């Protein structure tokens, strides 16, 4: 069994020597598995979204989405929400990742555990935990009352949903950034320092650009996860904080309108893919060692 289709080769793919390149065997199990169990359900969904009355096919469901200002608003809200959450994750998560990468020993292990903590509990239970903290009678407002300050409205709005979303996505961002920083060649930083660069210049002009890859990877993950989630919005939001996955869930359950839900699902998938593709074009292909 040949795992690699060709013998010893440099890390960077070189131009093929003409002829048709076969797909390496190693790719086949994953591709076949996903072709069957990922593409097939997608196809079923696509067909369902095109289902008209009787046995006909039509784009009626898509017309419903794109012809209605409300649904377009929901799409817009969802994307905007994803963007804001991703930005917050990047800003808050980068320093965390930096700290993880630049520490050693026990402190590092403790930091890693801390960073991973949000992922330890199920989303439903986590959301109830947030209600206890952010609620009108919750911990934060209890503190506000004690200090004689006005009540903060932190739940049943975008703020609450956003806080909970950023919380659970931070591990992904922090560890992506840490990963890139870990594998960076420290000698470049050393060289810059030896050449007299002050710490903040070192950071902005050397460290940050070199760790951009980690930021981008983390951002992609944060963005796709934030616009695909609905449980947080269901429990911590209200009707006006409607996002597309929640609408899909609602149409599948209480309205039992599968074609409509399927059309929204297809729309969401296309949107995410388009954004990822755009990002790929703008940023360019990542290389191994710079």
């Amino acid at each position, binding site marked *: *069994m*040949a*795992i*690699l*289709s*060709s013998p*010893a*080769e440099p*890390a960077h793919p070189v131009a093929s020597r003409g002829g048709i390149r076969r*797909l390496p*065997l*190693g*790719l086949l199990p*994953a*591709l076949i*598995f*996903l072709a069957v*169990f*990922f593409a*097939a*359900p*997608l196809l079923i*969904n696509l067909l369902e979204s095109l289902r008209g009355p009787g046995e006909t096919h039509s784009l009626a469901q898509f017309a419903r989405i794109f012809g209605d200002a409300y649904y377009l608003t929901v799409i817009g809200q969802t994307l905007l929400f994803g963007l804001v959450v991703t930005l917050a994750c990047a800003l808050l998560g980068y*320093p*965390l990742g930096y*700290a993880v990468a*630049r520490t*050693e020993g026990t*402190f590092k*292990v403790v930091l*890693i555990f*801390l960073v*991973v903590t*949000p*992922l*330890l*509990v*199920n989303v*439903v*239970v*986590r959301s*109830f*935990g947030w209600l206890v*903290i952010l609620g009108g009678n919750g911990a934060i407002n209890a503190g506000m009352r004690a200090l004689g300050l006005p009540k903060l409205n932190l739940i049943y709005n975008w703020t609450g949903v956003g806080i909970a979303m950023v*919380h659970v996505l*931070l591990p992904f961002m922090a*560890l*992506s950034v*840490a*990963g890139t920083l*870990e594998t960076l060649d420290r000698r470049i930083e050393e060289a810059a320092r030896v050449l007299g660069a002050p710490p903040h210049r070192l950071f902005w002009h050397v460290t940050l650009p070199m760790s951009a890859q980690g930021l981008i*990877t983390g951002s992609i993950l944060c963005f796709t996860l934030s616009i*695909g989630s*609905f449980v947080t919005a269901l429990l911590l939001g209200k009707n006006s904080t409607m996002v*597309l996955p929640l609408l899909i*869930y609602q149409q599948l359950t209480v309205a039992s309108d599968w074609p409509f*839900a399927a059309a929204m699902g297809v729309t*969401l998938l296309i949107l995410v893919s388009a954004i990822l593709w755009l990002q790929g074009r703008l940023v360019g292909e*990542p290389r*191994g060692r710079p």
Partner: protein
Amino acid sequence: MSKLPPALTVYIVIMALFLVAPIVVVVIAAFTSGDFITFPPQSFSVRWFDKVLSDPEFISPLWNSVRLGATATIVASALAVPAAMALVRGNVRRRRLIESLLLAPLSLPTIILAVGLLFFTAQIGLGASFTSLVIGHVVIVIPYVLRTVLGVYMSANHEAEDAAKVLGANPLQAFWHVTLPTIWPGILAGGIFAFLMSFDEVAVSILLSNTDTTPLPVSILSYLVYNYDPSVAAISTIQIAIVILVLLILERVFGIRNVMFASR
């Protein structure tokens, strides 16, 4: 010890509070003697732990989630590792396209996948079963393992691998003795994420589970629909303890500090 600037250390402390806050709340709530998850709790007791530990409605699902997560992670790794290696060294045409295809499940809201899989597995005769659940979870978690293994393998030095082959090792030997130890941190990191994501998965689990394969999130949700008491907090605390235990063991055995970074 840390060589971090003091401002950063302060930031870390504040963020640490943020990161653990809801978890701490849940754990404290598990020890409340009252019938509600309130804060601060009025008095303490362990009666909720008694209840969930003796209630098959919680304990079986916990075990189901563990074996589901483990199985899905192992299968996903078995699929992702050869794929990652092929992508990096296999000189594949349209490499980026294939990579995006393999990572595509990340972009799909799991509820869409869940409904599609439900109908698909019904048509191929599988129905709601452990196999269907594993399939659904594998689709969802493959990208996590693939990403991290790609990251490590891409930035790894391939000379040792090539040398082994030149010296006469067959591909399998080269993989086992040279490549695997190199990419092992990537597999472990991706595997941990995969396991945690599987534990958290709701939509697929709801639709593809049956009576003896119900995973924990589903049983918690069913319970929560009509009951609201700290048993949910108690079972979640037990779940947290198990995951922390597993992570600690991994840290002792493999050195997690070397492991968690392997992503691009």
